[in-house]
């Protein structure tokens, strides 16, 4: 994997202490995105430590997906900066951000429907591996699709498509993995499988940022949770604290503060 040779690499700014001695891998500063009259992301300072598994939760319309798309570069911020691994992402195109070590699984499965499972994996895999076969086998095994390697992706069930896309994203061996609703539309069993998969990758040292509504799932995987509401960060902390936080309860219940 090549690291970007951007001449404009700037020093990462000092970030507010997060209560952990790990290095910050991703941080945003004053990040803002407006759509016409609406402010979807409002002056957000946000950071994730290396090796962390962070969940991002919040009511509909809180700005979660917008925040992710700003990080991947699909959207351009109205204002503010994003730093990843010491690099200002502002000038980088989406594919350059991926080269820098970010990988993403979209909200709705984005796979190559007309290709087979193996071909799907081949596309990202050929970028990072010289010896494709062993990694292919390992990945297929990890996402439990070995049996279906030669089937067209369009024939997979929804859960299998979700797994395939996660598999495609991990073949890039990213430092930082973004998962947008990885268990949406999955059965309880499938959800458990995905949780195990994420846990094992996390144990291997991968950093995660996960947007998810399924709180059981969040409880299972997450260390720290960030709550987004109306485009701003409302609260951050361990899951138990968040669940018992009065303000968070109010936001979810919509009571007048």
């Amino acid at each position, binding site marked *: 994997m090549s690291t970007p040779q951007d001449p404009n690499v700037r020093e990462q700014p000092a970030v507010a202490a997060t209560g952990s001695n790990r290095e910050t891998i991703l941080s945003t500063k004053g990040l803002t995105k407006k759509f*016409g*009259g*609406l402010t979807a992301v409002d002056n957000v300072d946000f950071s994730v430590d290396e090796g962390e598994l962070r969940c991002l*939760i919040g*009511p*509909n*319309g809180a700005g979660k997906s917008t925040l992710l798309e700003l990080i991947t570069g699909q959207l351009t911020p109205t204002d503010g900066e994003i730093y990843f691994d010491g690099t200002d992402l502002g000038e980088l195109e989406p594919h350059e951000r991926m080269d820098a070590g970010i990988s993403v699984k979209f909200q709705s499965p984005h796979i190559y429907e007309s290709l087979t499972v193996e071909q799907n994996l081949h596309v990202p895999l050929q970028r990072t591996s010289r010896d494709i076969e062993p990694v292919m086998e390992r990945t297929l095994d990890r996402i439990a699709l070995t049996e279906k390697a030669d089937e067209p992706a369009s024939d997979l*069930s*929804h859960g299998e498509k979700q797994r395939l896309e996660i598999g495609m994203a991990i073949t890039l061996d990213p430092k930082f993995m973004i998962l947008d*609703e990885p268990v*949406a*539309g999955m059965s309880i069993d499938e959800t458990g499988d995905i949780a195990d998969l994420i846990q094992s990758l996390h144990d291997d040292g991968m950093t995660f940022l996960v947007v998810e*509504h*399924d*709180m059981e799932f*969040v409880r299972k995987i997450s260390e720290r949770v960030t709550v987004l509401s*109306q485009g701003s960060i409302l609260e951050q902390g361990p899951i138990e604290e*968040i*669940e018992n936080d009065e303000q*968070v*309860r109010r936001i*979810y*219940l*919509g*009571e*007048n*503060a």
Partner: protein
Amino acid sequence: MTLEISGLNAGYDGTPILRDVSFNVGDGEIVGIVGRNGVGKTTLLKTIMGLLDPESGSIQYNGEELTGKAANEHARRSIGYVPQGRDVFPTLTVRENLLVGETVGGDDETRYEQVYDYFPILEERAGQDAGTLSGGQQQMLAIARALVGGPDLLLVDEPSEGVQPSIVQSITEDLEEINDEFGTTILFVEQNLSVIQGLADRCYAIDRGTIVDEITGDAVSDQENLEEYLVV
């Protein structure tokens, strides 16, 4: 019985979202469907409106089978729809947005007066592009747009979403009054406790695409009964 849903299964591209959903809404009632994000509330409302074809099950409205009919056929049967996320037509003016909401062929000026009575801000901004309104105003416009069609049944998708708490309060009151004044039946989906308690005569709780509970009468005002289905 105004609306009778039975055995409804629906989803997108083979992804099942709703599983065997059955419930009913009586004439003049206000019924809430409550549940967290991502449990299938919006999908349910879209399926009832005919924007999504169910895989199986039936939707009956005033005794007529609506399953499989296009959304515009639903609208012609006086079903009004307030989409999620204040989905107004952004580059149409407020007035033009309202005009689209008129039942095709009908042209009742008095309805505009009623609507402007409820939401005077919309009359002030009639010539302004809807996309330039604030979140709360867009929500009002979305409700007003459904009202000018003179609906007997109003389907409302999360009226509180992305709207400031103070405005949520007034929108809740407006919906209540609309039900009172015109006898409009209202079916809404929501995860905001104050809206649910302020509005619903009774509720169905939904989780993972299935109705898991029915909460009626005084039980609705008891926070404990609802929190289980709403809070993180």
